């Protein structure tokens, strides 16, 4: 970094610029990448790599189970992150326990990785309530649906934590489409000006529903946007969990040390439709999906660990078994869940219900009672079939 002595003259932003080629530590075939592809980042320790693989195996199994539940009508909708497991897991496992995660609707796997009860994760998508988990307990903000609007929340939260003398960083998950939103711009700018420890992890999965990246942005890479805010930009292979973990870890460490926020673009791909209601054949070619299937993030890390003797069949079997147990438990518990209580509609609008709401609550309580009474007289409700 070179800085002129003249007051007010700009500092050379070269150190803020991302690499044009994404940082990669493991090649798609599961061999170690050439050192230059790593751009100075080191492969994480074997224990970290095994934790990344375990979380990805579990995350993918959870994702497949949730997708099945949606197709069976047991979830209202499910936005899959199939293919993006390296981003979901690599980013979250880089966080300290005291840090905060700000996920979007597509980031269920990140929440499961964070340790949130998977059934509570699916509360939103089952349609029982908007957010099923306790944000403070898990240090995970509610999943955000309006794009980029939670990014400034992370800036405010880390600012507030610093005021209280607490070492708290935040990871904001966003998609490529979200970087076009004005709220992304405002959050990047606030974070840089206030020097708050926030890492914005952009999962560039190439498609914002049906709109490809080339119609979204003319920037050299999305990570290049960072320099305009005086923020560091990183460009990483989003299907390489080791690289995502290494880059996000460094960005978080630098942010904690006072070097300011960072924008990390992880190049990945959304293998599945936007949600189970989407038809991607209307806007993209299957051959493109096939290309990315061959760059699968889970297979890549598994191959490396096997090749280097860190994982055998028994070790892998244990991960798959854990994933199966979680999926079965999710399916069984979802099937047993009752419905939400209509009376609760009024419980969390204000700290205490207002007089007009007390009146409406009473009306709804009466309807709900009448419906329950009617059901009690009818045959027992179908609890659904086994998955």
């Amino acid at each position, binding site marked *: 970094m070179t800085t002129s002595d003249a007051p007010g003259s700009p500092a050379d932003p070269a150190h803020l610029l991302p690499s044009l080629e994404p940082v990669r530590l493991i090649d798609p075939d599961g061999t170690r990448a050439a050192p230059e592809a790593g751009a100075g980042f080191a492969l994480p320790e074997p224990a970290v790599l095994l934790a990344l693989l375990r979380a990805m195996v579990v995350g993918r199994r959870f994702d497949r189970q949730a997708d099945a539940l949606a197709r069976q009508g047991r979830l209202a909708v499910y936005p899959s992150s199939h293919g993006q497991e390296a981003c979901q897991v690599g980013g979250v496992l880089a966080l300290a326990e005291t840090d905060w995660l700000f996920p979007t609707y597509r980031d269920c796997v990140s929440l499961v990785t964070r340790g949130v009860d998977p059934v509570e994760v699916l509360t939103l998508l089952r349609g029982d*309530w*908007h*957010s*099923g988990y*306790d*944000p*403070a307990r898990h240090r995970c*903000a*509610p999943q955000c649906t*309006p794009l980029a*609007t*939670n*990014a*400034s*929340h*992370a*800036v*405010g*939260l*880390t*600012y*507030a*934590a610093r*005021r*209280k003398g607490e070492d*708290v960083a935040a990871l904001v998950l966003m998609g490529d489409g979200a970087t076009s939103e*004005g*709220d992304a711009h*405002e*959050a990047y*700018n*606030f974070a840089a*000006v206030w020097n708050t420890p926030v890492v914005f992890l952009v999962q560039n999965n190439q498609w914002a529903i049906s709109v490809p990246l080339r119609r979204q942005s003319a920037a050299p890479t999305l990570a290049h946007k960072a320099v305009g805010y005086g923020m560091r930009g990183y460009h990483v292979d989003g299907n390489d969990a080791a690289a995502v973990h290494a880059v996000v870890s460094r960005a978080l460490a630098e942010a904690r040390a006072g070097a300011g926020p960072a924008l990390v673009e992880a190049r990945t791909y959304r293998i599945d439709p936007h949600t189970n209601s989407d038809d991607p054949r209307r806007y993209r070619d299957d051959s493109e999906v096939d290309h990315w299937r061959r760059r699968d993030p889970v297979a890549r890390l598994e191959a490396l660990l096997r090749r280097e003797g860190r994982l055998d069949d028994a070790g892998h079997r244990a991960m798959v078994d854990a994933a199966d147990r979680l999926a079965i438990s999710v399916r069984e518990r979802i099937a047993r869940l009752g419905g939400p209580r209509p009376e*609760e509609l009024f*419980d*969390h*609008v*204000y*700290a205490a219900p*207002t*007089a*007009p*709401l007390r009146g409406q609550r009473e009306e709804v309580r009466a309807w709900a009672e009448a419906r329950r009474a009617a059901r009690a007289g009818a045959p027992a409700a179908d609890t659904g079939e086994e998955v």
Partner: protein
Amino acid sequence: MAEVSLGRALNRALRDALAADPDVLVYGEDVGPLGGVFRVTDGLTAEFGEDRCFDSPLAESGIVGTAVGMAMYGHRPVVEMQFDAFAYPAFQQVVSHVAKMRNRTRGRVALPIVIRVPYGGGIGAVEHHGDSSETYYAHTPGLRVVTPATPADGYSMLREAIACPDPVVFLEPKRRYWATEDVELPVRTAPMDQAVVRRPGRDATLIAYGPTVDTALLAAEAAAEEGREVEVVDLRSLAPFDDATVTASVRRTGRAVVVHEASAFAGYGAEVAARVTERCFHYLEAPVLRVAGLDIPYPPPRLEEYHLPSVDRILAAIDRLQWEAAWVPRPEAARSDGGAAADTGPAHRLEVGA
């Protein structure tokens, strides 16, 4: 006692809140050394330091969005939107996050945020500086929307808003910033979610809030000279709405006029008229009327007098409250004369605005 302006009363409320609670933060555009374009934050940075009262980047959505995060981490941010019409970029944050966070998280995350918005016209400002945006906020469940009309209320309601566990949109009638009142601060007035009767009267009720309370009081004074005793209710809280106070007043007087600066169409007065009608139908001598802004974009300052409710327009509305003969008898009259008066009087005529 001392003469205190609304602007100074709000300033004192912020100062006292900052002194009382280290988690209170004040920030926004130009609120630091400048003291805000209306000087409501005057001297706060000097007294409490940049840590407590500071300028943010010029971005309303970012201001409110960061306030969400701060409140999630135990702070009580008080943010300023410089002008009513400049608050619109923050609307998404206000509606989708500020208003809903408690609900989304099943009561686990409260957002004790105060969003101060100088609003309304009457100060001769050019476009985008005179909007009355209260209905947008009042229509949004989860928000409390309050507006003081006097310096004493300005102080008391702002302190209460900052202490409130719910997010509060605090609308400051900018043309009343310089209006003074003889009051000793600190002062505690009625709870901020209650309407108050500013002037008692038995013949009709004027329902006003924020900038139009003073106009309504002047109109009531003029009406008294003509022999009509007009009650003036200051709503203070637009959401939630204090049905009890308003209903009691209109049931006493049998006539009501709502007065606000915002356009009449789908405006706040429509809600008031509907609620009053639902609760007071058998007590009403005339339809509830509205004296409101015209259904036009806020006019250029040299024409704003035609848009804003004036004493004369209020008096004209009072005159139209069917004084000549009750077309519907009061319930007690119906009982005594067997309903004979029910079909007398002029036809029911709906009138809006002036």
